[in-house]
């Protein structure tokens, strides 16, 4: 089924929404974990909230965007409200040991963790605005257009954030070595 067919079918019968949840739960859970550094249970709670919001907003989706970008955007917004609600970003203060523990946790989902675990840990130390673009570009393999649609920022801004984020990441790598 195409993206628009998936959405239309879900609007006709909520049972069909199962296909959207099945298709996107693994990448979204991975993304939420990466952006918030939560335990699997907490991340799943946020993911469930994201899917409920996706269902409520199905009529907002139009075929101009990739469905994946649109569901990522909603998951991203839910993650951001979680950060706001909790006052600060959890990833900034987390220790490497804690980070490793969370990432090694058995998720029971087929999450494909990035091979560059070390870089991912360093990315966690970046400012949120850089971290989200770096995660989406290099760990979620999203194009500039997709990142622009997910974060609702222009492609030019995506480009400059990635460049600045990479410079900061390189500096962190240098400091670590």
């Amino acid at each position, binding site marked *: 089924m195409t993206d628009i067919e998936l959405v239309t079918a879900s609007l006709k019968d*909520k049972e069909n929404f*199962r296909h959207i*949840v099945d298709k996107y739960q693994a990448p979204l859970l991975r993304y939420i974990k990466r952006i918030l550094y939560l335990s699997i249970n907490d991340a799943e709670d946020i993911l*469930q909230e994201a899917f409920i919001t996706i269902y*409520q907003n199905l009529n*907002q989706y139009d075929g101009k965007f990739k469905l994946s970008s649109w569901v990522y955007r909603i998951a991203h917004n839910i993650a951001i409200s979680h950060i706001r609600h909790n006052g600060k970003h959890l990833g900034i203060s987390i220790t490497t040991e804690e980070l490793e523990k969370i990432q090694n946790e058995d998720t029971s*989902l087929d999450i494909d963790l990035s091979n560059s675990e070390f870089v991912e840990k360093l990315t966690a130390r970046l400012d949120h605005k850089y971290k989200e673009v770096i995660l989406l570009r290099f760990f979620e393999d999203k194009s500039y257009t997709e990142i622009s649609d997910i974060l609702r920022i222009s492609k030019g801004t995506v480009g400059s954030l990635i460049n600045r984020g990479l410079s900061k990441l390189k500096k962190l790598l240098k400091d670590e070595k």
Partner: protein
Amino acid sequence: MKNKKLTDSVLERIEKEKIKPIKKDIFVLKNTALFVLCGISILIGGVGFAMNLTFLSRLDWSVITYVQGIMKFVLFTPPFLWLLLTVVSIFMMYIEFRKTKDGYRMENKHLIMIIAALVLISGVIGWGIENKYNITSYFTNVAAIRDATDPRYKIWSNPEDGLLAGEIKEVINDELLIVDLEGMDWEINIKDAFIAGKVVLQNDESIKIIGEKVSNSRFNASKILPWGQGKMRGMQENNSIYRNTK
């Protein structure tokens, strides 16, 4: 392998809480409302810019040096307030447009240039309309609006500094009887005055006078200038001679 538990719990929650997708019309309405707000912001910004142009074009730059102290500050405050209104409107439109469905896609510099161009164009159009229909003159009885749109009323109500304006009620040889912007009567000695080419010394003519105050009702003119664009609408209505001649 997918987490069927999560899928089922999402569907169960939708069922249990009777969650329904929000109607498409709501999203369309929200987007339309944002575009309407953008339009209103352009309009407000345009009015701000038009008023700034109106104010500055009515400012008699050649006599600014006559105005001293706090009066100078009061005189130059409105252009900054109009400019502030214009800038705030541009900012508001930027925010509103960014919130529209595809508003995030445009690059910052392009968006700011387009908004600024729209505000400037609507401002120039507004200024043209003001020049043609002199809409602000209908509000000159409201001091705040008058002072914010036409600096002449502030500048030319300063006989102490040698600046006076009013409507001619009578011409007697080398003297004019005028009613000033505050509704006060003045006898103007024009014997040694330079009279600008556009000035016609006749009843009901609005004029500006540079000179020297001799007493509370006498003024020696050294230069007589036309009032310029827009009909003079001061407080002359309070003057009995003025009312009787109308």
